[in-house]
């Protein structure tokens, strides 16, 4: 026996690579859900480490709400060109056109909730049996209880009471036809771990993660990017601010924080001394205390 211990980033990396390879080994048709956010960007980097010099044994899948930050789409397309892997895009606009979902109205209208339907349709259309996602257990207490291999029924629903025991590092990916598994390789990472890893590995990120000038309005005490997708009225005062975004989601529900963190070192300092947790900057979780649990049960990522 020795006192040798892996550094925490090496340990987290090795665990995530192990989980990605289990997906490759256990499933017929997996996919990696790519949002353009730092967590799924980290997953892509980990997949490079897991499978190069071979190709990924799965495509990347992006559910595009049509209300994305332009910078996210630019990043996505550049990245796909750089790594030479397959990308499948599911459009929320298509679901709206097909009448499967109805666009919300009013001031707080967002397509965020609609993307669940597009996601489930995309999964069904391509017959994906496993979807890899970048969720982490430190984000929220519903996630704190979710398995690394999380089985969903054919309606995409998560049942917290019927989770399979997950022992040692043995992941049971056996499912019936129509079911699928959501797999979370970075479950055990914290927000700060992801940032420290991105710094160590020099992983490029979309520019909106770094401080920049942007027109914003204040809604429900939070700064939102002014955009054509946000239903604004006279009461909304537009002001130019120095901001950055801590998560990358739909423009209608991703709040900005005022920041002068222009470099990754600044961001890490900012988070290390931060007073608000990451999902606290997502309006979609603010709806109710049990919001995340309810959305997960409904098939959200």
């Amino acid at each position, binding site marked *: 026996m*020795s006192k040798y211990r892996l550094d925490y980033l090496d340990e987290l990396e090795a665990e995530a690579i192990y989980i990605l*390879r289990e997906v490759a080994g256990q499933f017929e048709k997996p996919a990696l859900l790519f949002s353009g956010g730092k967590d799924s960007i980290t997953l892509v980097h980990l997949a490079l480490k897991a*499978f190069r010099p071979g190709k990924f044994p799965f495509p990347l899948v992006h559910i595009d709400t049509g209300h994305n930050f332009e910078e996210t789409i630019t990043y996505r397309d550049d990245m796909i060109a750089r790594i030479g892997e397959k990308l499948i895009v599911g459009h929320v606009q298509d679901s709206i056109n097909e009448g499967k979902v109805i666009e919300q109205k009013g001031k707080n209208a967002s397509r965020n909730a609609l993307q669940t339907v597009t996601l489930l349709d995309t999964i069904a259309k391509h017959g994906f049996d496993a979807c890899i996602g970048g969720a982490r257990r430190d984000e929220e207490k519903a996630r704190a*209880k979710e398995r690394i291999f999380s089985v969903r029924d054919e309606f995409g629903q998560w049942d917290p009471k019927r989770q399979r025991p997950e*022992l*040692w590092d043995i992941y049971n990916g*056996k499912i019936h036809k129509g079911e699928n598994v959501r797999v979370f390789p970075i479950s055990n990472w914290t927000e700060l771990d992801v940032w420290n890893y991105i710094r160590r590995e020099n992983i490029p990120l979309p520019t909106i993660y770094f401080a920049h000038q942007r027109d914003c309005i204040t809604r429900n005490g939070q700064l939102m990017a002014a955009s054509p997708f946000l239903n604004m009225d006279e009461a909304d005062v537009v002001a130019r601010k120095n901001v950055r975004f801590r998560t990358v989601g739909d423009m209608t529900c991703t709040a900005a924080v005022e920041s002068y963190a222009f470099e990754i070192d600044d961001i890490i300092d900012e988070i290390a001394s931060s*007073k608000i947790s990451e999902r606290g900057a997502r309006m979609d979780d603010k709806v109710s205390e*049990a919001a995340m649990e*309810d959305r997960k049960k409904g098939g959200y990522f």
Partner: protein
Amino acid sequence: MDILKFITAGSVDDGKSTLIGRLLYDSEAILADQLEALHASNRKNDDGTIDLAILTDGLKAEREQGITIDVAYKYFETDKRKFIIADAPGHIQYTRNMVTGASNAGLAIILIDARKGVIEQTTRHSFLVSLLQIPKVVVCINKMDMVNYSEDVFNHIVADYKKLAAKVGLNEVTYIPVSALKGDNIVYQSANIGWYTGDSLLQHLEQVEITIDDSSAHARLPVQWVVRPQTDELHDYRGYAGRVSSGAFKVNDKVTVLPSGFSSVISKIELYDKQPEEALAGMSVTVHLQDNIDISRGDIIVNSAGQPQLSSVIEADLCWMDTRPLDPSLTYLVQHNTKTIRCKIREILYKVNINTLDKDFDEDFKLNDIGRIVIKTAEPLAFDAYEVNKANGGAIIIDSRTNVTVGALLLRGSVA
């Protein structure tokens, strides 16, 4: 900096939630919006302070039914170490949850209520910690404020526990008198307990030494995936991808592939763009061999000088985790490392009453039952006895009708 995963064994009544809440609160691992929710809550202690147990509150589904369903994971860090807490419920009906949480833990905290001392559930928790072979144990004797911080009470409980530890086979045990409610000896050493000069719980967690087995004799690499790019320039590339589960491999080590038994020599170890000379337990790597032999997922690469057992009739401890009882007439699946094959439970040798540690010989094997069985597998498994090498001695049983994980197996040895 490294990571320590630990489990807390105890029930709500022992102040387990308060203890975890206190660890998170005093080590400043709570963020502002969570703190806001905490202060906004109506739940307060008798003396008007915040009820820290709220921090470990569960899901809506749990609150509605007033129960704890499952293992929740909590994350915090100090300057010295990162911590992952597996918070599992402690009542007997949640034995399977505790087994699940314990399977990955490097340390267990066993909570004892100072007013009650060593009770039935203490025996149960200690047995499970010993069964799953969690390397380190901390016994926190909680609610010391309720017994006037009495050294005598503490000493009595320690003496009682030592007898239990000897009985269940726990060696490395540390005892700390605490009050989670008042914060005594959780993060900071307490002035209220002047007679205790040891570390606080957090100080202990920061310093406790966690070792890993890096001897080449136990080198094990379950193959997860074969990397074969089959491009023009990488036509002959054949890498075996997996995570070293125990021990260490070096370039030029002589290795054997099981179950086939073919031998070869490690020619190269890859970690993406790096080529390390050795691969240690815990590392996810891609290994190349000198000879071109047939290897696929489910095989295991081991050091030729220290081979595991290879058998299809195996004695094992079984923890049953399903509401449907074990049916010896059924064919189940067993998943060991990256291999999933059919199996049957051929014999039930005995069950253990985990409250009293007595052996039972009744026939049925129900939810939360633990006991010794003999399993017959469709192909031989290359395994180590769990007590020798945890990483290669654990397996799960899957019900092929429901695909649900229904049992945890701790493999002990092949039956001649």
